């Protein structure tokens, strides 16, 4: 390690060595309240300096989805000061002047991609200062609950012009080009997160309907239910490190349909209406065109690519005859399985599987190129893109702009422990699609199949919302024009005061125009203020995603950019929230401040996201993946040559990988085995029919039916195969019995999975018949 780096103390210390920690930021604590339509958070940052002279500390973090900063309070011995919201230029000047005078100055500024730099200047030796930062953000709302995500670390991201390297062994850094990204400073990434600042959290959850469960696929949590609809969640371990996002899953017993409303401080009414997708009618089964776009960039190497491939295969198995599909894999090059859409035949699906088997994670993430290739494939014919990515790219605004220009709906499946949830949510919403994400230790089936079932077949098109009797009502932001199964429609709006009236929602389902009326009554609930802020944050992030820097085209583009900037500034002023145009600043005059002293600038490091390989970004200064697929053959890099370093960091991907494989549900394997005609494989029709019956019973046993559960497309396809396959009279009776059972959402007790695994034998018919007879006695009228 060069002397300059060591002397300046940039390398984080490791817990393993027992050295005293020397971190400018010591802990980060998240508290707040999660509602069905968004969250109100407070993040406490504790800074303490052990340096000999004043320091300037820069903590860089990513905003959650649909988020904006509201304000902060900076406190220390004898002071507690609240931030002011100012245009960025003024805020920076106020910060610099405060610093020059020797005061404690704090600046929170939002950059592109929702990256925030929280800068605390003139922290004195031995002084402890806390910054309480208020953030409003959105949640991923489902019909039966919600998913909340908060970034405790920031994923390193690909950009063609970024300068990437190892600053010290095991410490990576990325510098973005100033002409596009301004003076944003990204954190340093520590391969070993054990010596970094501590994180913790305690959040309350208020669901609309009765809570069924609250859990986390990312952290060990303690959950307490206060009553049916309210609970609290906190970190179960004493401490944890910043190497992955916090993800909370909240499930309700039933789909919630309702209105949240109240008055804000200015006495205006604010409301949010949630309508579950099931209320819009059934999903059509019309054939669809789907292009799978698979990210195989280097950052996906290891567990993420394995998970994405599995998800992709499961979705291929869920395609129905009549569907047409395309398959594209991209890094900095784009490869397609075929240059055009193909029919969902057995041959094509096998070919697609072979293509997937050859996919390897390696180069840079040229997401826009992959999406444009997919758009060309769909050109003119309509259809949807199903994107599987970790979204680890910088300059996302340009990608969103190019995707919108292509005019194709994009559904995103985000993958990773620190995926760019904000970006993927925006990309899907701005193009009219839906997004979901998976964390590394989750099964792929739920997220991928649930989302895929909805792709291409909205339950509602051409959604319109009108108001009746709500004085001064304004619906904003523009509600989604289509609704997909599994994802409710959310309508935000405001009114003049405490009023009552009706929302008229119209839509088209199966070619038929339908409508419903929803009564809205604004009471004096204080919730109005929170709703106002959540809505403001959502509007700001929508507009932020439309900014580009520098403007790509000529005068017209520049004028458009100026209008967007103006709009953002007005939104910031109206809602009292920071944005790309307005920053938060506070200057504290302490007794004994010495003007002119130059603080030493340090950057708070974060942990490498746990499923992203350090070397996939920082080795050899290239975004190239380490050779993969050699569990027993880890290439080791020699220490003797200057461009190599010894490996202190051995991620345990293969264990995760194996654990993931083992946890894959047998049902997913079944789903993958279904042939294009909807039946299970077998030597002849009888064997195929029997295997299909057993498979169907396996799906029924877990509560999947033709209309519910993530395996509903598979249940439907098995049923349709069984209806049409030729059988003798007795077998037909048995098959019809099981089909009838499936229609009623019933199941038969029995170990059908084992029978299927042993290879279906003719006795299985008897076993099923016996089961049906017993069930028939119970229910009376099975055939």
């Amino acid at each position: 390690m060069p002397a300059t780096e060591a002397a300046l103390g940039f390398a984080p210390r490791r817990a393993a060595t027992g050295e005293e920690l020397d971190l400018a930021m010591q802990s980060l604590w998240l508290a707040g309240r999660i509602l069905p339509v968004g969250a109100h958070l407070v993040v406490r940052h504790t800074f303490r300096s052990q340096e000999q002279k004043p320091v300037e500390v820069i903590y860089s973090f990513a905003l959650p989805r649909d988020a904006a900063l509201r304000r902060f309070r900076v406190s220390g011995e004898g002071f507690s000061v609240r931030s002011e919201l100012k245009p960025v230029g003024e805020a920076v000047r106020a910060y610099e002047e405060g610093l020059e005078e020797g005061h404690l100055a704090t600046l929170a500024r939002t950059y592109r991609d929702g990256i925030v730099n929280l800068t605390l200047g003139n922290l004195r030796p031995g002084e402890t200062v806390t910054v309480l930062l208020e953030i409003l953000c959105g949640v991923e709302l489902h019909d039966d609950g919600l998913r909340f995500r908060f970034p405790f670390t920031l994923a390193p991201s690909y950009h063609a012009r970024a300068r990437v390297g190892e600053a010290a062994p095991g410490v990576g850094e990325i510098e973005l080009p100033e002409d596009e990204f301004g003076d944003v400073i990204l954190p340093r990434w520590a391969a070993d997160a054990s010596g970094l600042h501590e994180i913790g959290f305690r959040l309350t959850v208020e669901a609309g309907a009765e809570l069924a469960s609250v859990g986390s696929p990312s952290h060990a949590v303690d959950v307490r239910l206060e009553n049916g609809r309210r609970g609290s969640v906190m970190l179960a371990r004493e401490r944890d490190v910043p190497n992955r996002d916090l993800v909370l899953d909240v499930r309700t017993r039933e789909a919630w349909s309702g209105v949240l409303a109240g008055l804000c401080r200015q006495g205006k009414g604010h409301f949010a209406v949630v309508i579950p997708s099931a209320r819009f009618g059934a999903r059509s089964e019309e054939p669809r065109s789907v292009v799978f776009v698979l990210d195989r960039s280097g950052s996906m190497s290891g567990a993420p690519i394995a998970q994405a491939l599995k998800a992709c295969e499961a979705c291929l198995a869920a395609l129905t005859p009549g569907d047409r599909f395309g398959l594209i894999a991209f890094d900095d090059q784009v490869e397609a399985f075929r240059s055009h859409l193909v029919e969902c035949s057995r041959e094509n699906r096998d070919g697609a599987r072979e293509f997937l088997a050859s996919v390897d994670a390696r180069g840079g993430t040229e997401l826009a190129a992959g999406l444009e290739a997919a758009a060309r494939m769909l050109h003119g014919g309509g259809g949807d893109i199903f994107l599987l990515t970790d979204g680890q790219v910088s300059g996302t605004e340009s990608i969103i702009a190019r995707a919108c220009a292509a005019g194709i709906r994009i559904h995103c499946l985000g993958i990773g422990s620190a995926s760019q949830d904000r970006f993927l949510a925006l990309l899907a919403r701005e193009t009219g699609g839906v997004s979901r994400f998976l964390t590394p230790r989750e099964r792929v089936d739920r997220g991928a199949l649930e989302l895929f079932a909805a792709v291409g077949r909205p339950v509602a098109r051409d959604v319109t919302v009108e108001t009746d009797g709500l004085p001064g009502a304004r619906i904003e932001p523009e509600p989604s024009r289509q609704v997909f199964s599994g994802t409710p429609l959310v309508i935000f709006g405001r009114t003049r005061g405490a009023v009552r009236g009706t929302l008229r929602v119209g839509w088209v389902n199966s070619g038929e125009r339908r409508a419903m009326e929803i009564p809205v009554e604004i009471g004096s609930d204080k919730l109005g203020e929170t709703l106002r802020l959540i809505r403001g944050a959502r509007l700001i992030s929508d507009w932020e995603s439309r900014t580009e820097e520098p403007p790509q085209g000529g005068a017209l583009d520049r004028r458009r950019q100026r209008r967007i900037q103006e709009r953002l500034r007005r939104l910031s002023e109206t809602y009292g929230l920071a944005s790309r145009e307005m920053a938060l600043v506070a200057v504290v005059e302490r007794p004994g401040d010495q003007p002119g002293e130059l603080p030493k600038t340090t950057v708070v490091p974060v942990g490498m996201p746990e499923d992203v390989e350090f070397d996939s970004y920082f080795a050899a200064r290239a975004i190239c993946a380490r050779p993969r697929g050699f569990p027993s053959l880890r290439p080791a890099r020699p220490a003797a040559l200057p461009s190599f370093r010894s490996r202190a960091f051995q991620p345990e991907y293969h264990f995760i990988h194996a654990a993931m494989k083992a946890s894959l549900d047998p049902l997913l394997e079944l789903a993958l085995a279904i042939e294009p005609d909807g039946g299970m494989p077998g030597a002849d029709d009888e064997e195929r029919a029997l295997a299909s019956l057993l498979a169907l019973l396996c799906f029924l046993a877990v509560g999947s039916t033709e209309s519910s559960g993530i395996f509903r497309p598979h249940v439907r396809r098995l049923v349709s195969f069984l209806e049409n396959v030729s059988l003798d009279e007795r077998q037909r009776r048995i098959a019809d019995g099981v089909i009838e059972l499936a229609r009623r959402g019933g199941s038969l007790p029995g170990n059908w999975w084992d029978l299927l695994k042993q290879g279906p034998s003719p006795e299985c018919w008897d076993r099923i018949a016996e089961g049906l007879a017993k069930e028939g006695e119970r229910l009376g009228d099975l055939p």
Partner: protein
Amino acid sequence: MTELTLAELAEQTGVPERTIRYYIARGLLPPPLRAGRAACYGPEHRQALERIRRLQAKGLTLAEIARRLAGEAPRDGLPKPSPWWSYPVAEDVVVWVRADAAPWRLKQVREALLDLAARLRTNQQEDENDLDAGD
């Protein structure tokens, strides 16, 4: 006018104040000419900032620029290093593969290595079986 305040230096070079402080902290720029309120910056700071910008434009990271300014490495005349993977295919066999080869070539090589590793493993297994039989 040769002596500038931090704000003036930032204005003239287009490099924000915070960035300049960051460069000083990382040893890329010399500290200001005087301490305290009289702190100021001279032409050497301007030149150093221009040099940093030039090197950044070439794709060097700040860490590399710091190393270069400190005169540590890489010196001119030293051959350009190339990255290699070392695959320990067996406990007693290591194979070296150039890491910057084309992806298709790397794939080919990996397949060959898998074969080799499998063969070496089989031999080892047989040896162990022989040993077991000997006991």
